[in-house]
């Protein structure tokens, strides 16, 4: 470690103001920050109450996503790792380009978006599409608004919905049959595999024609689906980690699940047969993954605590409606994006009600 520090100290002057490489300073400080924490101490108030900051925060989210990622590797093979590498590379190009132009530091935000992105894609998708989606998501979803913390929409979801609407046929036929046994698909690289390994019906598509996958398979995850979302157990495990670490707000998760289940029960009660059974709907597709990891994004979800309830209820309701009645079999992606769009309005309403209450009180 000490060797590394001396190396960093030695090369730092190369990037100083006025030197030919000075425009690359953000890249230098990114690597510097990734390896070392700052050793400066605060002299006067305010003092940090909690050692958490963006970097640790993002790192904890990635740890929580770990089970899903390992599950994806097991079920769908090494391919998921290539997808992750492509997604990181594409995201880093955009992120670093903007950091260099803006003369800002490279933010760690894209580490999470780049990690989540391959997990919400069909595992058999061509690698160039992963890059296209990631670049679109980071560019339009985040960088044009000023980067991490200033975006209006979830960048990974912007990228995914761009792919879903722009390349629907590729997206719909890129599922991989999951592996099983001790090694699963771990040793299989689907880039080279025979085309029959790729088939075309996820449990939600099959449910449209009345074939229900057993709940046990949905829980374990040996079903077709986006790379990281198939195994409900692993998603819940990761969800517990980020809830316990305080990364995700439990109100959002709880209200999404309650509203989704509640409206589903009501629908099944009043017109049986239109919607899938409640448990099947909750465990299949990206519902749990979205509820735990995507809807709880602290930047794009409402800021005020009370607004998180209507936000979650809206997402649950929309996900159910889109899944049941629209042409798309999976509603969570659009539901969360629409939730992001409504979030500032919910905040505004909450703040206005508060202001009125205060005005009355004093």
């Amino acid at each position: 470690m000490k060797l590394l520090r001396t190396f960093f100290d030695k090369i730092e002057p190369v990037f100083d103001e006025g030197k030919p490489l000075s425009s690359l300073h953000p890249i230098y400080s990114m690597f510097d920050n990734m390896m070392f924490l700052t050793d400066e101490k605060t002299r006067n108030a305010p003092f940090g109450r909690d050692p958490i900051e963006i970097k640790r925060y993002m790192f904890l989210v990635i740890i929580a996503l770990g089970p899903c990622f390992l599950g994806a590797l097991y079920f769908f093979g090494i391919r998921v790792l290539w997808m992750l590498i492509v997604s990181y590379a594409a995201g880093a190009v955009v992120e670093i380009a903007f950091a260099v132009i803006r003369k800002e530091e490279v933010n760690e935000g894209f580490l999470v978006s780049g990690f989540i992105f391959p997990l919400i894609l069909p595992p058999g998708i061509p690698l160039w599409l992963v890059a296209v989606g990631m670049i679109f998501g980071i560019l339009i979803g985040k960088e044009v608004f000023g980067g991490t913390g200033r975006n209006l929409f979830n960048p990974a979801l912007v990228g995914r919905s761009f792919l879903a609407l722009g390349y629907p046929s590729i997206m719909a036929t890129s599922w991989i049959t999951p592996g099983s046994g001790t090694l699963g698909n771990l040793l299989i690289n689907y880039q080279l595999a025979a085309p029959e390994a790729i088939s075309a019906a996820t449990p939600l598509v099959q449910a449209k024609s009345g074939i229900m996958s057993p709940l046990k398979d949905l829980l374990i995850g040996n079903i077709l689906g986006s790379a990281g979302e198939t195994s409900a157990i692993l998603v819940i495990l990761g969800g517990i980690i980020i809830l316990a670490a305080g990364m995700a707000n439990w109100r959002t998760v709880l209200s999404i699940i309650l509203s989704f289940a509640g409206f589903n029960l009501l629908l099944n009660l009043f017109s049986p047969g239109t919607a899938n059974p409640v448990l099947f709907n909750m465990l299949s597709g990206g519902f749990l993954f979205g509820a735990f990891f995507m809807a709880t994004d602290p930047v794009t979800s409402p800021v005020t605590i009370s607004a998180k309830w209507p936000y979650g209820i809206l997402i649950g309701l929309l996900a159910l409606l889109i899944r049941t009645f629209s042409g798309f079999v999976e509603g969570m992606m659009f539901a969360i994006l629409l939730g992001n769009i409504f979030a500032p309005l919910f905040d505004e309403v909450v703040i206005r009600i508060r202001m009125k209450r205060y005005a009355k009180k004093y």
Partner: protein
Amino acid sequence: MNSTSLMVIFVGSIFTNNILFASFLVMCSFLVCSNKIDTAIGLGSAVTFVMVTTTAINYLVYHYILLPLGLEFLSYIIFIAIIAAFVQFVEMFVERFSPDLYYALGIFLPLITVNCAILGVSLFMVLRNYNFLQSTVFGLGGGLGWALAIMLMAGLREKMGYSNVPKPLKGAAIIMLVTGVLAMSFMGFSGMISM
């Protein structure tokens, strides 16, 4: 005669076939007047009111005057004239009875005359063969849908006050980009209701 149920028309014109996100009508006042939530609410309700009433009047005029006389080709001019006259009437009415609202809306009130969504809704009504009740509900839904769109945009723009938008994209350009993402998200409703 079109047999779509009233509920379907109402929900459909607000969400699935939102006049702004599906047809991209009225971008002009959507871009200009969406910087504050209060303005958005005021303009949204004014547009809704004008849309409901003019659609109803236009229906009666089209089916009881233009059609019997064989003058359907005049419908564009007649519709525009009726909308303009009605907006004038609303303006005088608002000025007389609620001066506050009148000054809050300012120039946007007369500008509703050239709001293409209002003409658009009247033309869609003819195109889709709606009956009187369906047309009125369609006008109400279309107006509410537009009001919802501009309020959502105003909320996002207030949140964007914290954003650091690159210089070339400042102003209308970034609003167009955001509208694109909004339209992309509203695509999720497609296929849900056919109108």
